[in-house]
């Protein structure tokens, strides 16, 4: 290396780019700490003059965030459970064989992955209405959102299963294991990390689910946090420090989990089907 300082220059530039890109997040936290009058200061202050976190408990209580976040948690857990249970087996079979039928199955799944939610929501709403599922709106949202997230899960987990050496499974079969036994005791444990990463991604995605919940769930006591947030959003909203405090409470857990698991998530994604 003739120019040893170049990597450090690149690092500095990378930090600047990241700071620039992550500015909206910073702005969310800063705004939530500002007082009502400081928000409308012109020019805006880039650091709160008198940071005031008291808005957090106020928003938490006033917007009944405990209920909203509980519902988000319920919906996201349900979506993740259904996606993992149905999706893992499907991904395993699609990874194990190579035939025309596997191609057909994958093509079907890819096609279902591309359906926009706004295409699906009208027929789902009418269909759920006909079979009476609208009386259980949260469960209806879980079913709809699971169908939305499963294709992506299957494609990613399939790539994980592809990287499990087939010889190990065949050895287990030769040793007298049944297919079920080999699947649960050999293949699943080896693919565990990949499945876990994809499950976390599914959970994060459905924690922010909005369109199905907004259209299907009418009772405010059953709505998730995204719908609760939309209640005080709009072109004419002005209660910005409350909105940002609400957003901060909503996304901080997701961000924390993501930053903690960032390396695993990124490597899980890059090693897989995204190639």
């Amino acid at each position: 290396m003739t120019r040893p300082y170049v990597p450090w220059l690149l690092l500095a530039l990378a930090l600047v780019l990241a700071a620039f890109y992550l500015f909206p997040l910073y702005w969310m936290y800063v705004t939530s700490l500002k007082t009502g009058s400081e928000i409308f200061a012109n020019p805006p202050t880039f650091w709160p003059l008198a940071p005031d976190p008291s808005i957090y408990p106020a928003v938490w209580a006033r917007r009944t965030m405990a209920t909203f976040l509980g519902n988000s948690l319920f919906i996201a857990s349900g979506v993740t459970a259904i996606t993992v249970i149905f999706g893992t087996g499907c991904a395993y079979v699609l990874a194990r064989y190579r035939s025309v039928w596997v191609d057909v199955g994958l093509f079907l799944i890819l096609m279902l992955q591309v359906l926009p939610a706004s295409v699906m929501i009208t027929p789902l709403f009418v269909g759920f209405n006909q079979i009476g599922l609208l009386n259980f709106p949260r469960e209806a949202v879980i079913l709809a959102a699971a169908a939305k997230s499963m294709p992506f899960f299957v494609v990613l987990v399939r790539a994980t299963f592809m990287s499990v050496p087939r010889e190990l499974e065949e050895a287990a079969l030769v040793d007298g294991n049944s297919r079920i036994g080999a699947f649960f005791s050999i293949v699943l444990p080896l693919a565990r990390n990949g499945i876990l990463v994809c499950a976390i991604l599914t959970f994060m995605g459905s924690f922010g689910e909005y369109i199905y919940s907004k259209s299907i769930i009418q009772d405010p006591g059953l709505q998730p946090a995204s719908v609760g947030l939309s209640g005080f959003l709009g072109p004419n909203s002005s209660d910005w420090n409350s909105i940002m405090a609400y957003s901060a409470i909503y996304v901080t857990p997701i961000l924390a989990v993501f930053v903690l698991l960032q390396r695993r998530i990124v490597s899980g994604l890059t090693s897989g089907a995204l190639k």
Partner: protein
Amino acid sequence: MSRFFNSLRDGVGFDLILVGAALLFLLALAGLPLVYNVLMSFQQVDMFTLGTLIRPWAGFSNYVAVVQQPEFWLVTKNTLIFVFASMGGQFILGFALAIFFAQKFPGASTIRGLFLVSWVMPGLVVGAIWSWILAGDFGVLNTVLKAVGLIDGTVFWKSDPAFSIWAVVIANIWLGLAFNMLLLSVGLAAIPRDLYEAAELDGANAFQRFWTITLPMMRSTIGAVLSLGLIGTLQQFDLFPAITEGGPANTSTVAGYWSWQMSFQLYDFAKGATISVMMFLLVLFASIIYVRSTRHEVRG
């Protein structure tokens, strides 16, 4: 009978159950609604016939009615602006960042990973944050742009008909940029290093190396990224209710949001279904490109 159960435990029946359960679930909750949607676009549907399956046949009258809506061409134009501007922004900035983070320097992959937080954030929260950044009088973007001298007056991003769709485009580029960067990084990493070394020995400059090695080697990745970008942009919904609600005067309404408004705000389910079928044709086109560009992956 025991052979049947043996097959479930030990043979092809085991595989069929695993794949069949998932496919049945998907067909029931995604395939069936899709067919139903197409069916509904040819029927007369209103609040009173919502609960019945057999309704008066409408032929193409729903399609004619949608095209005759005064806002139809405006929405079409907005959809095209939204899709192509978002894709362009995400792809070009994403590619630039991917190339930058492919350089060797300490912390490159960790910092690149931080960019992905935008991807896991709920769309509605991203919309809320950008709605505040883009606010006319007190938004920080206007302040920054004025400080660097790019604009003189105040730009009312959300309420000026000339800018409202761009307000959503800006937020959407931020939201999708990181995912584009990640996919393109994967493609870049797959190019053998020695190709570059050989080209460098032959005296090719950085631009020539990019043009003759990087771009051709990444053709399939770029195809996949662009078609996924098209699909993802058409799927975008959450930003609209959070930033502009399609306003002012529909100047920021796109097909997906319009379809939802028809069904769930005007309760015109037939028109809502019709718009979404039209949109689905566009998605179908993108998917064909996507499947073609990932064919080597599908065949595995």
